[in-house]
């Protein structure tokens, strides 16, 4: 079976699951269960959209990995179903964002064609990433939502430029680390620490991550950026000490912020003991844990979970964004939650496989960096809402409600598929 036929088959399975999911939520919401074709319209729309994406890939990237797009599709469908279950109106908006994401996905594949064309643009990408991160700090367009200054308003739409910055940052790091990896690898133990000339840009990134954290109050975003950086640095150099020093620097930076912003101190205190203040500071985490525990092994059933009060208010604030994983676990159980986590792990496996098969440093670092970005982001939020690590608000890729996140992650998958096609092409030759 060719890669594309395999992808098509996978997408049909995803489409079937989506139809079951929507039908289940729809039936549960009816007073008298009655089947209706409108419940299938979301699934039909969804399948059509991903078939379009599939045709673009079939035309432009015939040898690309056949699993990444279906995984992205299944995660998107899971997210849409849950958002539809929590707040049907928002599911429509999210659907529009998914259309935008697939459009950008197609545009990148058709227009960029070869990811190596990004190599000469690496510094442009780096500067653009910093510019995007700085945008919300600007007056007028920048604004604060829930204590984090992460948003800009362009006309009628709110955007989170940080979501796009992470992709640009990976492009910059892939190019920069490929150029400097040998010099950076020499440090520690052999010739002493690398010269500031080579280390400088890395310290700059650390500084930027800290600044983002401090300026925007976005602990999750700062942690993500810095973790991407450390992961790629490790892949490029193979030196654990970088990771160690990096973690010490991050901890030191966080420690200083710990004292400057009680916001962060609170997060850590809540993580250590969520029940010290279960009705106020610890409310979200405690309710999230109740939702996860209440799901049992196989969940309360899609559309039948204990998520909303009788007046329709979610028991957990930000249920459809930060806490969507808790909602999934309540309705689909530990089994459903584990399935979602495994999807990210399979995604990481396929992404890293592309990187390992690539024969040039830039492709390797780009594929590995993009894959790591998605996996780290998923872990930060899933680990946060389950109480494994301190809770920092960030979207669950493809699943959470949020336009910028969906669009940026489709961009990420598009780039990854371009690399994959390229890698498999050269392997064929």
């Amino acid at each position, binding site marked *: 079976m060719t890669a594309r036929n395999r992808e098509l088959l996978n997408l049909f399975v995803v489409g079937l699951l989506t139809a079951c999911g929507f039908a289940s939520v729809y039936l549960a919401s009816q007073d008298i269960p009655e089947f209706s074709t409108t419940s299938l319209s979301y699934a039909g729309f969804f399948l059509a959209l991903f078939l379009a994406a599939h045709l673009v890939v079939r035309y432009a990237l015939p040898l690309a990995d056949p699993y990444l797009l279906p995984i992205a599709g299944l995660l998107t469908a899971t997210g849409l179903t849950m958002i539809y279950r929590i707040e049907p109106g928002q599911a429509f908006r999210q659907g529009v964002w998914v259309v935008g994401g697939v459009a950008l996905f197609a545009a990148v594949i058709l227009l960029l064609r070869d990811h190596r064309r990004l190599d000469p643009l690496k510094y442009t990408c780096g500067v653009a990433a910093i510019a995007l991160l700085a945008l919300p700090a600007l007056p007028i367009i920048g604004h604060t939502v829930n204590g984090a200054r992460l948003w800009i308003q362009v006309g009628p739409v709110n955007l989170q430029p940080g979501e796009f910055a992470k992709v640009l940052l990976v492009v910059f790091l892939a190019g920069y680390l490929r150029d400097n990896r040998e010099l950076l690898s020499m440090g520690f133990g052999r010739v002493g620490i690398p010269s500031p000339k080579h280390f400088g840009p890395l310290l700059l990134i650390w500084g930027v991550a800290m600044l983002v954290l401090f300026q925007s109050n976005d602990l999750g975003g700062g942690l993500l950026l810095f973790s991407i950086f450390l992961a790629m640095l490790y892949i490029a150099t193979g030196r654990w000490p970088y990771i160690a020093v990096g973690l010490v620097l991050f901890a030191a930076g966080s420690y200083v912020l710990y004292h400057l912003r009680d916001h962060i101190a609170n997060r850590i205190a809540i993580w250590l003991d969520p029940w010290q203040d279960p009705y106020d500071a610890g409310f979200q985490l405690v309710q999230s844990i109740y939702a*996860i525990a209440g799901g049992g092994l196989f969940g309360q059933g899609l559309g039948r979970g204990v998520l909303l009060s009788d007046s329709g208010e979610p028991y957990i604030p930000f249920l459809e964004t930060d806490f969507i994983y808790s909602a999934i676990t309540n309705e689909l159980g*530990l089994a459903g939650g584990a399935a979602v986590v495994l999807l990210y792990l399979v995604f990481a496996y396929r992404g890293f496989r592309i990187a390992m098969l690539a024969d040039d440093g830039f492709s390797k670092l780009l594929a590995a960096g993009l894959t790591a970005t998605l996996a780290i982001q998923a872990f930060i939020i899933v680990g946060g809402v389950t109480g494994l690590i301190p809770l920092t608000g960030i979207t669950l890729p493809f699943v959470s409600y949020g336009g910028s996140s969906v669009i940026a992650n489709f961009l990420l998958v598009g780039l990854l598929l371009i690399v994959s096609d390229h890698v498999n092409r050269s392997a064929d030759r």
Partner: protein
Amino acid sequence: MNAQIRRLFFVFAALFVGVIGIGTYWLWRAPDLEARQGNPNLVVRQLTIKRGLVLASDGRTILAQNRKRKVQGRTWFLRRYPNRGLAAQAVGYSTIERSRTGLEESLNDYLTGSNANLSTLVDRVENKLRGLTQEGNDVVTTLDAGAQRVAMQALAGRCGSVVALEPESGRVLVLASTPTYDPNLIERSFRRATQVAAPCSPASPLLNRATQGPVFIPGSTFKIVTAAAALDSRRWSPSSTFEDPGYCIEYGKKVFNYADQAGPHVYGTVDFSEAVENSINSVFCDLGKAIGVRRLLDFTKRFGFYEDPPLETPGEERSPSGLYSKGKLFDPKDPNQVDPGRFAFGQERLLVTPLQMAMVAAAVANGGVLMEPHVVDRIVSPDGDVVTRTRPDEIRRVMRAETAAALTPMMVRVVEGGTGTAAQISGVDVAGKTGTAETGRANENDTGFIAFAPADEPAIAIAVFLQNQDGTGGSTAGPIAKTVLETLLRRTT
């Protein structure tokens, strides 16, 4: 670089396994987490159980039922109380936002079908396997809907309570407390439900005045306890004579009899029956001094004082009767801490629940044997099988049968020609005792009346207590006891 990528993958794999691991940990802790306040999972699980009905003794009058509502893909059973405030404090409420009270709380396991009786267990497993709604058991109370309604109407506009029970079995027929509240409003507006106008402060409509507080001063109704102690000791008989100068002397000071515009009453030479009939304080004052605090206290305990009165309602909704000091139950180690004279005629620092005083009347009515009061007659499974049925249970013999037999005619004289004439029922001998306790505020007496009838073959014992009354126990509580007794006697004959 491939080695690093491979290692990084294993790091991610470990982190994701950690996520699944902590998910498993929370699942393992789920039973403990479910019991925590503020966990909506437990609340919703309870709401999806078809809760049993709470019924009056006729098995038809519904005190609590369900209203179905489809919420978030599930059928929720929300509570409705069609008779609203009729027996609100006894039945209690079960809501989403607030905790439960009354029988709704104490019988929650039965009402939700979570009790461990074999038949219920079998039903529950079967329902679960067949995906059916879990159904609870119905509770049939001993409350007489008609008499309860009469009592509530008679109490309307006052702060008080009526308790009526069967002396022979302990079946509680009336458990009324005012001001009452509408339990249907608790969910929607707790403030609106509990802010009621009443001639007492605080109005506390949620307080079950029949069993809780205690809020009432027994006054002269307590003289039945003193008289029982005196007669049971064989040192006194109904014909023992006393000299009443209008007062008794305690700690060198005069304690006067009940006074009206003409001043304190003075009766001269009286026998024990006349002292009870006219409720002469000075006689009981002297009796108290002669019996002694120690023995009188011991006798109250035989009636059930100093213990939560037994009933199926939650323990925190029942309070012991007895001496109270600074808001706490006071069981003096040293008898000298208590004034024996005032104790004997029901003043001192005595506070009682109407249920306890109904138990006093019932013990006399039942030949000196105190039966355990109960308000639940039976619990019935959804299929109609009786899960449990309450059998009459004796607490103890409080006094000799001869003591009870001697006390009864003395109490009959109270109603025939003494302070309790307002409770007379034509064709039926009523044995009773009035109480009028001065609270220290003008025209704000705590009044009470305890009785049983018919005197020769007692079917009903009753206690009526009122707060802040402008009048005596005979004139305020007596007529209420009369109407409730009439209703109940019509029912039994």
